[in-house]
């Protein structure tokens, strides 16, 4: 097939090459539409952030595939309300939630494999379905399924312009190997991610602190498509400062460090900033429920850096991080190694140790080990930091993905500013996740949103094109 044949009009053009794009392309092709998918990354890095994922939060009323017990719609919904503080579109959110149950067999039919979680993630066995081999295996399976169905795929093909007049898509201009091509299609599915890879745009939104952000996933989600759509009259949802931002190891690569850069030691010790001062309750809740707020917390500190400090008692009680800890025989030496004011760190730790009340340490529940008379307090798992060697992990904000996006309706149609749907543009994945995630995050909902609206967008786009 000639993807750039100028005389050709495709039924459906899919912009992007991650989970949402692939779900849309497979669905549209299976419905009989001719489909071209354009992915800006080369084949080795195809699949955007989806390549880095490992599970999908999935509702189920009875054990389903790898999922134990039940996770009913209502509980899922309440979990979402909690993390977003109600900043969510209930209709779309419930759609995403309900559909997940149907996704599991569909995904299996398209080559995705699931596994029962083993070490480290057992607490998610009820709510999250894990992909065997992780997101790259899923992406590989989907590309194979899409190509077997006859979806045309063009890598290293970046969308640089879109002809969208009055909410009607006519063509997209792509750049490939230094050349530009216009691709015409009867319908378009936009699934090109957020703008998290775009450091300049992040700086616009966050100011200078963004210079110290690390991008956890793909370098290819530059937000080009999002920016074009917003400029051409699409209605925006959420805002540019909202997104998923966690604290990760400061030594991570600028892009694409993925899952291994996370540091799970925070709730076991204390976290200090450049001034060797604590700034938040490290034991507020279980780490998996709290890790998503620490990106913002660290981002608010001077120079956007923090240090998670533990002692020998805590070593080995958390998932081993990829970078070795900074290790020292005394707090003074640790401060020196980290470039912190040693007296200040000693004072902070002495103050913390003095405030620790006796209790029975149990990291598997919200235990009674806490501080008294300390500000900020540490409300659980507070144990004195007194057993050498001492260890530290430097932390920086790691951006996972951004929530600024285009508004959609329940048929995945992109909405224009005045509220009417675009005639033939459908949106799926990160680019519309802000409809459901006004703020906050629920582990595994990114893939739920992408799969649900990817499949809907693909079906609707094909229906429109073939009508």
């Amino acid at each position, binding site marked *: 097939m000639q993807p750039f044949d100028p005389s050709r009009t495709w039924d459906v053009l899919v912009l992007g090459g991650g989970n949402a794009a692939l779900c849309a392309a497979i669905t549209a092709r299976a419905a009989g539409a001719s489909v071209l998918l354009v992915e800006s990354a080369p084949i*080795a*890095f195809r699949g955007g952030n989806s*390549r*880095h994922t*490992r599970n999908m939060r999935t509702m189920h009323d009875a054990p389903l595939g790898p999922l134990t017990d039940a996770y009913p719609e209502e509980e899922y919904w309440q979990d979402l309300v909690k993390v977003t503080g109600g900043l969510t579109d209930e209709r779309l959110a419930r759609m995403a939630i309900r559909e997940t149950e149907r996704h599991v067999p569909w995904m299996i039919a398209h080559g995705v*494999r699931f*596994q*029962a979680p*083993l*070490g*480290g*993630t057992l607490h998610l066995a009820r709510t999250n379905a*894990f*992909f*065997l*081999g*992780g*997101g*790259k*295996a899923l992406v*590989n399976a989907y590309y*194979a399924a899409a190509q077997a169905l006859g979806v045309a795929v063009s890598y290293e093909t970046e969308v640089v312009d879109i002809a969208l007049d009055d909410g009607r898509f006519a063509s997209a201009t792509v750049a490939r190997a230094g050349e530009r091509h216009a691709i015409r299609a009867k319908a378009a599915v936009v699934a090109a991610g957020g703008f998290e890879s775009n450091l300049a745009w992040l700086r616009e939104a966050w100011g200078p602190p963004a210079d110290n952000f690390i991008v956890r996933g793909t370098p290819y989600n530059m937000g080009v498509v999002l920016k074009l759509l917003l400029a051409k009259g699409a209605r925006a949802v959420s805002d540019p400062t909202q997104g998923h931002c966690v604290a990760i190891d400061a030594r991570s*690569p600028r892009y*694409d460090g*993925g*899952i*291994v*850069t*996370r540091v*799970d030691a925070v709730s076991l010790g204390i976290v200090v900033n450049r001034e060797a001062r604590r700034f938040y309750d490290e034991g507020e809740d279980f780490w998996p429920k709290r890790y998503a707020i620490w990106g913002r917390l660290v981002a608010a500190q001077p120079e956007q850096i923090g240090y998670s400090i533990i002692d020998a008692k805590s070593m*080995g*009680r*958390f*998932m*081993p*991080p*990829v970078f*070795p800890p900074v290790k020292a025989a005394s707090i003074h030496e640790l401060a020196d190694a980290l470039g912190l004011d040693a007296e200040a760190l000693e004072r902070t730790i002495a103050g913390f140790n003095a405030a620790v009340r006796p209790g029975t340490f149990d*990291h598997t529940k919200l235990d009674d080990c806490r501080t008294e008379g300390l500000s900020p307090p540490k409300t659980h798992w507070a144990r004195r930091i007194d057993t050498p060697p001492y260890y530290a992990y430097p932390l920086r904000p790691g951006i996972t993905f951004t929530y600024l996006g285009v508004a959609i309706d329940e048929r995945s149609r992109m909405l224009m500013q005045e509220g009417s749907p675009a005639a033939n543009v459908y949106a799926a994945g990160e680019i519309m996740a802000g409809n459901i995630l006004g703020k906050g995050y629920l582990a595994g909902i990114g893939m739920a949103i992408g799969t649900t609206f990817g499949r809907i967008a693909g079906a609707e786009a094909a229906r429109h094109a073939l009508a």
Partner: protein
Amino acid sequence: MRSPEAPSLEGLVAEAQRVLAICNACRYCEGYCAVFPALERRLSFSEGDIHYLASLCHNCGSCLYACQYAPPHEFRLDFPRVMAEVRGATYRKYTWPGAFSGLFGRNGLAVGLAIIAALVLAFAFIAAYAGPERFVSAWSDAQGSFHALLPHDVMTGIFGIVFVAAVALLGVGFARFWRDMGEKGGELAAASAAEAAHDAFTLKYLDGGGIGCTYPDARPSYARRRFHHLTFYGFLLCFAATCVATIYYYGFGWKAPYPYLSLPVILGTLGGIGLLIGPPGLLWLKARRDPELADPRQGGMDVAFLVLLFLTGVTGLGLLAWRETAAMGTLLAIHLAMVLALFATMPYGKFVHAVYRFAALARFHLERRRPLDHTAE
């Protein structure tokens, strides 16, 4: 042709430690095989751990295709390749006597020379023992019996000695490997040995977590498991045929040739067919193999072993087919030479993978029962 120098053991251990630390923080591949659950039990990796994990890996490739850090990512994570290189080092390190470890480096050459030596030996021995003219004449008065050329006791004696020596040498390798994994001799409990045997006999882990291995390429397939089964059971059936024949002879005084429908002949024929299909199948897959996954230095060793197995099977079947013709004497000499070369090279070729893999699987089952000494969550 001399293979490129093997990487230094220290370099390999350091690279394996780097890679294992990444995998241990990631764990996305934990559903594929035994390697990942075993590595997740650890926070750091000693050299012994690395040999152990490498022998738990059967180089299926699934974890490379699934890896978001695979080259060209800056982490350059190629887990199957690193494990394959470590296995090469394992073979060299644990082989006994150590002076022979160089044989793994030029294994194709070593096995080739062993075959030639065995051929010379077989022909010379038979010629000296029975007389050169007997190669073509013995068949007429032998009525299908090979012992007109080589008396039974002589044959059993030679092969018995070579076989026992090979097993003993392999046993030394096993014991050294077992000790370095940090296990005590007595700990190879019956239960874990039985589970390891089950895994080995069923090739449990050659299923890629239920979809087939990504071998020879990214598409999951059971081809490798099937060809390996043919090879492995072919080998075992041939071995069983020989054992049954020996028991017949010494236990019951029943003399060869055994009829076509006797147990030794049926076992041998089935085994021979397995060796006729299995090794070429594995070679064919290997030729189409993704080069990213393999350690190119070990190509010669893999090929040499498969070729020798194939030749053993072919010559055995040939001997059976033409045992009552003038070709019998020559065919017998060739077949015996192949078997001799196979036994003699067993401790110094690809066969050793069976020993270390079995040890690693037994260790895996032993360890599985132990509580974790840390609570990595």
